[in-house]
């Protein structure tokens, strides 16, 4: 990463904490607006509990509708946060520094949003406890661990706990800064409690750095397992033609990364516009994430292509009928076209041009398109798969989402936005200590006739200085 603005630690504190310690004018109206949508969604949910699932558009044979499509979508979005953060940390990519926290926080709220819809979908959410936790000793009722619907909460729950702990641990140094800068005694006391007495000793910093790497390494396998297990909700059902696919796990994972990384790019643009973070998130950052997106989108498209090829290769009547329904028949045909165009055909060629990659507005809107496409992808997997036009005609049906389902789906989007806004009011969305570390490690070096910025990634460990006979080290010792 070449492009940067060199700032002092105080400047970084001032810029990144200004919206936390002071209330921006737009904040309250924005929160009230989102809160209204969230409450409307919960009201719809209350109405649904009172009247039963009949108020949704779910009916035989389509028993999974908007709720489950939306669940898969949010699980997908949640993947990019930790994926971006973990992979970029492990590879010590310098451009990660300003974006990791926002990506991780988005993971947490996306997972919470994802959990909304299946809980609501079951109609009697409190009964979920019976299916997940083995607690009812008196009645001898136990979860059936053979069911993917028990695997799902165990995976999503693990991922949610892991992501939340990851965010909290990486927040400690920034909480110490907030503790030191807060003027209100009560606020100061609260931040002091959360900061756990962090003082910035070499031991604490060393463990912070290791924490980032070690937790990344531990969360990545969970990340892979979560969307694999979500895909098995579908793939283990041998009776549904479009779902029983061995390719589903990797296909779902790469689809999740595609939509999720796009969501991170959207988030980067939004944080620049809303919080004025131009000094931290530069066109170079958009360029880097767009390059990553080109690879991810192309890989995802390859998996999508394979899924279709192997489905049609068998020429089995039910499978062909399903594909015809997905791609040709009203209303799924036009939706299929929109899905392909928005998730691949428009964005990827645009990202091939450097000037577009470096443009936050273009990156934002192309990533919005990707996520529209990826939501439709999940919709097109869930609903046409269940319509089963290949079977007995008396079993045919259709699906029209009701206003209740639409309200709850819209609520999940408002919930994530509201969560991010509330989080950003209390904690910094950009990890201050990480950005500062990048600043102190950055130096200008002269190579031939050019002076270029270079970054020292990490100091060598102590034993290297003690035992190594590197001439440069020896010279520096003599100096």
């Amino acid at each position, binding site marked *: 990463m070449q492009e940067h603005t060199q700032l*002092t*630690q*105080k400047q970084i*504190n001032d810029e990144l904490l200004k919206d936390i310690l002071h209330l921006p004018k737009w904040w309250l109206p924005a929160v009230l607006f989102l809160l209204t949508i969230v409450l409307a969604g919960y009201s719809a949910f209350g109405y649904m509990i009172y009247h039963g699932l009949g108020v949704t558009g779910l009916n035989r044979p389509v028993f999974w509708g908007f709720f489950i499509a939306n669940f898969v979508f949010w699980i997908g979005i949640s993947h990019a946060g930790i994926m971006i953060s973990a992979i970029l940390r492990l590879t010590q990519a310098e451009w990660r520094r300003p974006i990791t926290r926002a990506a991780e926080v988005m993971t947490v709220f996306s997972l919470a949003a994802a959990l909304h819809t299946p809980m609501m979908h079951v109609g009697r959410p409190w009964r979920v406890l019976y299916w997940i936790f*083995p607690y009812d000793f008196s009645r*001898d*009722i*136990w*979860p*059936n*661990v*053979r*069911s993917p619907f028990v*695997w799902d909460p*165990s*995976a999503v*729950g*693990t991922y949610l*706990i*892991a992501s939340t*702990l990851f965010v909290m*641990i990486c927040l*400690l*140094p920034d909480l*110490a*800064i907030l503790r*030191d*800068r807060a003027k209100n005694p009560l606020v100061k006391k609260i931040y002091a409690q959360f900061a*756990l*007495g*962090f*003082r*910035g*000793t*070499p*031991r*604490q*910093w*060393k*463990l912070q*750095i*290791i*924490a980032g790497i*070690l*937790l990344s390494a*531990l*969360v990545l396998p*969970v990340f892979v*397992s979560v969307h694999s297990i979500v895909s098995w909700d579908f793939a283990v059902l041998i009776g549904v033609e479009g779902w029983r696919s061995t390719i589903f796990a990797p296909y779902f994972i790469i689809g999740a990364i595609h939509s999720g990384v796009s969501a991170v790019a959207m988030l980067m643009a939004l944080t620049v516009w809303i919080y004025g973070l131009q000094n931290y998130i530069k066109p170079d950052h958009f360029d880097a994430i767009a390059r990553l997106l080109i690879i991810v989108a192309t890989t995802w498209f390859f998996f999508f292509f394979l899924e279709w090829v192997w489905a049609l290769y068998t020429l089995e009547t039910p499978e062909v009928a399903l594909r015809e329904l997905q791609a040709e028949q009203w209303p799924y045909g036009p939706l299929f076209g929109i899905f392909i165009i928005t998730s691949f055909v428009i964005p990827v060629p645009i990202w091939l041009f450097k000037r577009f990659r470096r443009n936050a507005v273009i990156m934002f809107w192309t990533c919005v398109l990707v996520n529209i496409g990826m939501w439709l992808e999940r919709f097109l997997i869930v609903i046409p798969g269940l319509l089963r036009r290949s079977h007995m005609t008396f079993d045919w049906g259709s699906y029209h989402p009701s206003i209740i389902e639409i309200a709850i789906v819209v609520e999940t989007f408002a919930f994530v936005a509201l969560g991010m806004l509330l989080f950003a009011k209390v904690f910094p969305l950009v990890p201050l*200590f990480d950005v*500062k*570390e990048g600043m*102190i*490690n950055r130096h200008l070096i002269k190579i031939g006739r050019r002076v270029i910025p270079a970054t*020292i990634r*990490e*100091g*060598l460990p*102590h*034993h290297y200085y003690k035992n190594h006979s590197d001439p440069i080290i020896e010279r520096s010792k003599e100096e």
Partner: protein
Amino acid sequence: MGKRSVLGLYIEEDSAADALDNLKEAGFHESEYEILTGVPYPEGTFGEAEPQHNLYRWPLIGAICGFSIALLITAGTQTAYPLITGGKPILSIPAMAVIIYEGTMLGAIIFTVIGIVFESRLPRIFMGAYSEKITEGHIGVTVTTDENRTETAEKALMKAGIDGEIIRGWE
């Protein structure tokens, strides 16, 4: 005798490193002084001792605990209420593997986080000698020692050219 802590603040990295050298010369042990910074400097920047830790044991212990609990839950619930499926064993290994995997990872992650907090010597109830300037870019050198040696420590800190006054606190 109670322990007291004193803190000197420095603007330059070199001054802080000099302060550590002065403390060593004055006979203070490595365990008696610490560098406090608002940003993670590369290890050894100030000539400080390498912090030792056992963090890598924590995820292993957590993974073993998580594995055991998940195994107990999955095997226990299936044997407590056997669902007999024609010709198949009561314990469904592929299904158990999924939950055991998640349990193992969850245990490893939770223990890692506990380990990070524990090995970082947190939570710390008393801050001792501390300044809010540290998170704004100053480098602090703090000495925690017997009350009768604080004067020597203060001299060693001041010799390196501190910014402002010595800050004093109790441990």
